[in-house]
């Protein structure tokens, strides 16, 4: 069964099973096993990239897999990849590899921790590869399980609360999605392709209506909203965002990185793969509203971030703000906006992962994350004088995150702005305020933590060690490289995105 997608999908599971057989005292062996697995997986994603045909839009035939799974209900094991999922795949492969390295210092039930991380990786790949709606849903749910335990067991002081909250929120969303899936299954006549995402796409549902509670509802508009809420919780879009600050703050570093770097993108990926192609008319119809929610995300996240005194929570809110740009780009329905949105998904993945990893590195030394302690004193101060290497990498990550031209965040934000300007001029002007505040909270945080006299508390901290530098370097290279040469990434996605845009344009 020589198929790259299968290998990428199942290799982490093989690794996980392997780890289960290692004695739990052999911590280093477990770590190396996990590292090897993720490294190989990352290698395979690179191989996937090398074999990928940029010129073709849509799902690439050469990688597709279709195997019957539960034939009674026409459920298939269908995998495939296109230009939208490939960047996410690369990002996932890279981030998991780096996260294993960053989790080297985890000492609490090492075996379970790495096994769960690998399980999570497989589930994430599953979401990005699945082309069968049922399979998609299964992976979407499977992903919750390791997340729940990773936050609930290895998290911070308030971990149970955060884990349950994360679980319930996401579960609520996925149930709405499930209703949608079942509805589509029935609407498609329960036939051979009733769970096939590709077959369901294309806007077949706009004429259908459904009577519910005595009134007639447009089928596509109703179910667009169910899907929308399901994915919006994951992004998270404004009224459904409050799980994020809790989950991020409580989660261990690696999980925060995965959460912000990959899992949030699954929400927007859901729009691109499912909500938009299946209900294009409804997506266009509600685009204004989605753009408005995106704008609220941008501003709300930025304003809230400005008031935070906990570094991790600040970055969590900045994620909300940055994902708002993605939402705005998605609602543009222009090649610039859509490509910008997908690019922003990737770029936010790298830059925010950097920020979380750096905060994690700092946390390992300080065991607190206060910019300003509740009593008003500084939590840090003078880091720039004391930890030069850390400072340098922090500057790169921070400026990538605030969208400095020349680093990766800028070009995606500029494309999104360009994409939405004509359609939502007023929104664009207001979103520009988000760019401004975005710089303000990060630099203000930087000023309070890094400038000034060296705080006596931080005198004992050691600068980054070789392992830490090693796992930060790929991300530094990525944010700089894709800031200067966005073309390699854009070339992957443009054909597939173009196809989606033409579908929405019709």
């Amino acid at each position, binding site marked *: 069964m020589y198929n790259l997608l299968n290998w990428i999908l199942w290799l982490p599971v093989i690794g996980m099973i392997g780890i289960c057989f290692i004695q739990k005292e052999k911590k280093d062996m477990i770590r190396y096993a996990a590292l090897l697995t993720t490294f190989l997986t990352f290698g395979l994603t690179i191989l996937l990239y090398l074999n990928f045909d940029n010129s073709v839009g849509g799902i690439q035939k050469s990688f597709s897999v279709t195997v019957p799974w539960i034939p009674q209900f026409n459920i298939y094991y269908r995998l495939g990849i296109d230009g939208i999922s490939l960047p996410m795949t690369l990002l996932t492969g890279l981030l998991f590899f780096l996260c294993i390295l960053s989790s080297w210092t985890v000492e609490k039930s090492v075996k379970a921790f790495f096994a769960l991380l690998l399980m999570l990786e497989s589930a994430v790949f599953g979401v990005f590869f699945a082309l069968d709606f049922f399979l998609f849903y299964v992976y979407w749910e499977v992903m919750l399980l390791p997340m729940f335990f990773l936050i609930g067991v290895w998290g911070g002081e308030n971990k149970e609360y955060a884990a349950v909250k994360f679980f*319930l929120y996401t579960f609520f969303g996925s149930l709405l999605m499930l209703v949608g899936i079942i509805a589509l299954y029935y609407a498609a006549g329960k036939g051979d392709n009733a769970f096939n995402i590709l077959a369901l796409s294309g806007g077949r549902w706009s004429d259908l209506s459904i009577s519910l509670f005595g009134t007639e509802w447009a089928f596509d508009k109703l179910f667009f909203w169910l899907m929308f809420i399901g994915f919006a919780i994951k992004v998270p879009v404004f009224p459904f965002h409050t799980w994020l600050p809790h989950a991020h703050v409580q989660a261990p570093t690696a999980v925060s990185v995965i959460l912000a770097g990959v899992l949030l993108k699954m929400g927007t990926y859901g729009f691109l793969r499912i909500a938009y192609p299946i209900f294009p008319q409804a997506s266009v119809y509600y685009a204004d509203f989605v753009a408005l929610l995106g704008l609220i995300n941008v501003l709300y996240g930025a304003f809230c971030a400005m008031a935070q005194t906990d570094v991790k929570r600040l970055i969590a809110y900045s994620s909300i703000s940055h994902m708002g740009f993605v939402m705005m780009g998605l609602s543009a329905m222009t090649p610039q906006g859509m*490509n910008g949105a997908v690019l922003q998904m990737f770029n936010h993945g790298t830059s925010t992962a950097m920020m979380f990893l750096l905060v994690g590195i700092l946390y390992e030394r300080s065991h607190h994350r206060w910019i300003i302690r509740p009593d008003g004193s500084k939590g840090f101060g003078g880091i720039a004088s004391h930890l030069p290497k850390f400072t340098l990498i922090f500057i790169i990550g921070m400026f990538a995150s605030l969208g*400095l031209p020349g680093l990766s965040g800028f070009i995606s934000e500029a494309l999104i702005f360009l994409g939405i300007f004509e359609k939502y001029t007023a929104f664009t002007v207001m979103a520009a305020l988000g760019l401004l505040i975005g710089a303000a909270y990060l*630099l203000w945080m930087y*000023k309070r933590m890094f400038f*000034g006299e060296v705080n006596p508390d931080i005198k004992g901290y050691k600068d980054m060690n070789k392992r830490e530098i090693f796992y930060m370097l790929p991300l530094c290279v990525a944010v700089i490289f894709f800031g200067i040469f966005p073309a390699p990434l854009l070339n992957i996605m443009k054909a597939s*995105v173009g196809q989606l845009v033409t579908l929405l344009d019709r």
Partner: protein
Amino acid sequence: MEYTIFTILPIFLLPFLAFVLGSFIVKRSEKLAMAISTVSIFVSFLFSAKIFSDFIFSQFSKDYYIHKYFNWFDLSSQGLEFSVDLGIYIDNMAAVMLLMVTGVATLIHVFSIWYMADDKKYGKFFVYLSLFTSAMIGLVLSDNLLSLFIFWEIMGFCSYSLIGFYHEKEKAGEASLKAFMTTRVGDVIFLLGIVAIWGVIGTVNYVDIYSAIANGVFEGKMVLGISLATFAGFCIFAGTVGKSAQFPLQVWLPDAMMGPTPCSALIHAATMVAAGVYLSLRMYPLMELGGITPFIACVGGLTAFGAATIALVQTDLKAVLAYSTISQLGYMVLGVGVGAYNAAFMHLITHAIFKACLFLSAGSVIHSLHDHQTHDHVQEMPRMGGLKTKLPLTFLAMMACTLAISGVPLFSGFVSKDRILGDALYMAMTNKVYWVAYLLGALGAGLTAFYMFRMMFLTFFGAPRDEDVYKHCHKESLKWNRNVPLLLLSIFTLGIFFSGSPSGQGIVKFGGEKYEWFKVLMVKPIPKNFTTYSKEKLSTQDNRDKILWPKSSYESHDYGLNEEDEHRLHTAHIISAIASVVIASIGILIAFLMYIRQSFSSERIISRAAKFYKILVNKYYMDHFYIKIVIRRGLLKFNRLLANFDLGIYDRYAIDGWEHISRYCYRIADFFDRYAVDKIGVDGFGFVIKDVLNKGLRFLLAGKVQFYFIVLFLVLAFYMFRISTA
């Protein structure tokens, strides 16, 4: 001479590679990083000089430009076309700018070798300097607003890093944050302007924008109820306001003096802040089309005058220079506003030279003075005085620059500033709005002369006011890396290099057109010349015939005016020149009387106008307004409120509140279960059944939220599909 990528790109790439290389080796050898940085910028200067001489002196002077592009990325697919090209565009203006940037940068690098020698982190300083210089060169070479913006922001980053260079000082952190955020306000609006043009006309190439203007593409296009040209022009001008520290975003520049002095000279005086003006000049046709030039002129005039008044009361040597920079930038913007295209650009160049020199001289002074209690350098003018004999060469250079900036005839500042004021006066004669701009500008010129000479007198003349500091100042001898840059720069403060008419106004004239090279070669871009035009791909080979396009045509009349207006213009220039000389002399005279003759003391004036003095010392309370009121009381309060609402109210009640609701449901169910079912119904059936049912129900209703969701939605789904399939 043909231009290929091998002759143009090194100008940009050499400093950039020096930055890359330097950032890797700076830990091993600071000296090597420094050497690489300095040598690379010098070689880059040689390349620029070649281009400059080709453009200005040689055969193709007037109508030659180089324009090449490459594709950055391309999003075209499915018939939707969109690609982004970046490129190089060199015309006369860019050629002069290149020479100025690389030249001044080279001298500042050389000076920094002396200035930073004692600093522990001097290698790092040079690395930043290299990045900055390459970004500035990139900005000048850019052929479009997008890459200009990219380099613009990278310069902002360098400025941020260099202001915060001494990061152990709390104040440096504040200053760098303030600088970045204040300019960012302008930059974000600028980005909107770029996006507006890009979105509507599909390109942000300068030349494409000119041709779009000529072809009437902008006509009838509206953005948010105002015309596109006005919107875009305003947004782009906002970029200038931020970067060039114009009112109301001027507050960052004085604080930016926290950085090392050579970086103040390069970034915050000669190049980066002038980039804002350069942008306005590049986009001049758009500003004109949008009809915002009177606005620009007034902003410029206000800044020129307002900053000059604040400079009157500063006691810090660098602060005086910082305010004078803001004020001079105001003149350039004023020049843009009144359409004095070549005069504004000339002032940009002359100012870059004399202000860089002033800052370096100030650095030379400051570096020589020590306070032995605090081990810090002395920057306060009240502690200086009488340094003329100790630092003769610095004095010489600084005096030349002071004469230039004050507008003394024969010096460069006079030529350029008075051309701007002359044009402003001419515009005022035709349109009353410009009177504001002219009068503010003219008064500001008098103030400039006064505060600059005040600075000179306080620093170099009279008796030393702090004996201890004076005693420890070593006598200066000629040093290649300290004084040579100063003296070289001060030579170029002579007006003769820029104009055949040392008085500037054509009252006295040498030679003909040839000596008026600046006026002849820097001409406003005329959009109609760009209507037919094609780009050339960047390659290693070039065909010169193909890239010879008419750039602009110089008319023998300055502005293509008729004879009557020409006469009026000439008159305006003469009047304004005479007025300026008189005003400047009054300013110098007052300074002389106050600080040398001490005919009347400054203290008495201060005590007489105490209120006014207080306003000036507090910089018109603008910092106070921004920081205390807008940010602390407004923004931060609002943010805290929102954050508390988010987690304290919304999350706690609207989200976690569901938990309580489900608890109540559980209690009701439990009550029902216990009394209705259990006691009445079940007890009747006996013990076994009761236990089973009770436990079962309790399990089901144990307040598990997810379970409710499942039930709720399964039921919902079930009903829906029964209905839909029916």
